[in-house]
């Protein structure tokens, strides 16, 4: 047998392999379908690597534990699904406010409430953006193939470190449980971003929340040579609570701007046949697979269909969508919810009356035939 990195595994296991590739060495989680395999694989992989696995008493404590571990200098992640993702929202806001890198996987299932535990959905797109209270910016990524799921998981860790923020990986039950071929990259093949740490020596005042000229905040590990305060309250450059309006104004703008002003660098997407497309499908996650199928099928028949697959959902790449869809007669957003990304696409493009939704919300995976039937309706060709 030759030495090969080709595997045939579940999306949840791909996520684990990618997280380890990115340098994760601390995971805390709580069992929930359809994400439990991530915790299971982590518990079997981490001890041999010297990493730490913690099964906590709930999802709240899971995300709190990874935030604590991130502060001591580790790359951390937790994984959950809808109900657990709801429980994590408050602590996610803490990580936003205190600017602590961490990765949160939401393997989406049908909601609201307990919903459809064993069926897929893409219903958490807006929760990822606005689930925690208060103004803030967030990064959320997704992927449609296992190869991309690997890449986006590594990218999630990279962006968490670069922007000192929680990053949400919005996968879904379909990709989480589907087995597919994936080639695990060799060490060095995919870029891995390491944490930016302060070079200030002991005895020199370290200001944990004083940005450098480039806007970045070098970190210092808890247990290291600099002692400082971390809080979820509005804080000054020392990390100490303040209610000074000037400082509050500056901090909220910093938290939002560091991400919203970097949309271009954070955006990942894929394009298929967009050059001359008169009808553009916009999709993401596992539904993009069905969308791509129908696009290729129609191209073979000479129809000018194209696909814009979004891999970065937040910050929403509005400019990219506007530019790519400028010439299209119709834009059809394919997603498995009651219409979430379609709202963002309507906001992004000129003449939003061109934008239609092709969705499925009954727990069954949206098929190419479903999309084909909806295209016939949209194009006025009946059913």
């Amino acid at each position, binding site marked *: 047998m030759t030495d090969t990195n080709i595997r045939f595994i579940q999306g949840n296991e791909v996520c684990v392999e990618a997280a380890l590739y990115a340098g994760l060495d*601390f995971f*805390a989680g709580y069992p929930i379908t359809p994400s439990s395999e991530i915790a299971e694989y982590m518990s079997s992989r981490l*001890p*041999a690597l*010297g990493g*730490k696995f*913690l099964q*906590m*008493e*709930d999802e*709240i*404590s*899971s995300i*709190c*534990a*990874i*935030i*604590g*571990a*991130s*502060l*001591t*200098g*580790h790359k*951390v992640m937790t994984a959950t699904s809808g109900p657990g993702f709801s429980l994590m929202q*408050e*602590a996610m806001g*803490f990580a936003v406010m205190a600017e602590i890198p961490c990765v949160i996987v939401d393997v989406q299932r049908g909601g609201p409430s307990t919903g459809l535990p064993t069926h897929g959905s893409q219903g958490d797109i807006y929760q990822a953006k606005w689930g925690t209270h208060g103004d803030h910016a967030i990064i959320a990524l997704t992927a449609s193939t296992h190869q991309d799921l690997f890449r986006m998981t590594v990218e999630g860790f990279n962006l968490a470190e670069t922007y000192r923020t929680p990053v949400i990986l919005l996968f879904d039950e379909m990709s989480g449980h589907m087995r597919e071929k994936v080639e695990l990259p060799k060490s060095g093949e995919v870029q891995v971003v390491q944490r930016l740490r302060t070079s200030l020596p002991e005895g020199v005042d370290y200001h944990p929340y004083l940005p450098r000229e480039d806007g970045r905040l070098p970190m210092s590990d*808890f*247990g*290291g*040579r600099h*002692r*400082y*305060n*971390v*809080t*979820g*309250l509005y804080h000054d450059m*020392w990390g*100490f*609570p303040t209610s000074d309006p000037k400082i509050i104004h500056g901090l909220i703008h910093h938290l939002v701007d560091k991400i919203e002003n970097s949309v271009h660098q954070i955006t990942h997407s894929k394009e298929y046949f967009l050059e001359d497309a008169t009808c553009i499908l916009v999709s993401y996650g596992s539904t993009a697979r069905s969308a791509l199928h129908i696009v290729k099928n129609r191209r073979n028949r000479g129809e000018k269909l194209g696909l814009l697959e979004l891999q970065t959902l937040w910050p929403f790449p509005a400019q990219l969508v506007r530019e790519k869809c400028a010439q299209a007669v119709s834009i059809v957003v394919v997603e498995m919810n009651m219409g979430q990304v379609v709202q963002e696409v309507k906001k992004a493009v000129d003449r939003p009356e061109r934008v239609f939704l092709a969705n499925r919300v009954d727990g069954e995976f949206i098929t190419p035939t479903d999309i084909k039937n909806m295209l016939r309706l949209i194009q006025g060709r009946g059913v």
Partner: protein
Amino acid sequence: MSFRNYIRERFFPHLWCPGCGHGIVLNNMLRAVEELGLAKNELVMVSGIGCSSRISGYVDFHSLHTLHGRALAFAAGVKMSQPNLNVIVPMGDGDALAIGGNHFIHACRRNMDITAVIMNNRIYGMTGGQFSPLTGTGLKATTAPLETIDQTFDVVHMAIASGASYVARTTSYHFQEITKYLKQAINHKGFSAVEILSPCPTHFGRRNKLGGAVDMLEHLRDNTAQIGSKALEENPERIGRGVFVHKDTPEYCSEYERLIQAAHKG
């Protein structure tokens, strides 16, 4: 001792009311740290939300001021990821045992080497005097204008039943015991829970006509007694002070290290 070595003077004056018992806890906690000779760089204080939780900002350690009720969960991540660090978690009664009750019992059960300090003033002070699970019945609070009818529970019993391997109780009046028990708790390898009854004259005392700060401290003196003492035997209605549990139970981080070694061999 010189407290200046251990506090962040920049962040003073503190926000506690005159007569609050929490300053006594801070004072004697710092004495414990000094007497143990702990390095400040190896000390992490993790707290939640409430009057007591602000203690973490005032000390010159690594300090993490988190969410209401979740301090022990953050602390688990800190300790597990860096077991060489000493982790102290000051909490209020509402913080530790209402919103944080589930984390508290599981932290006791897991037996990770963390020192939990429950500063029990029987009231939600920061939000203005609502009753807590430790208030007890027949008292007044802003959310119990007639009287409280909620039964209380015993923090010590709760910690013991949940598996904590070191459990002690004292009061802000018995300040020397604070230092003594905190030293034992920090040195103990396993989860320690130390309950410190601490007066809140502003919100608990005033509304219940318990007098001023001195009266409330004297109340703690007169209504508690060392466990095993004649005073407690003769007055069983008094609250027991002392060390209730001090035992060896496998510590979580050490047990995990054993798994790592086994995985390497496997």
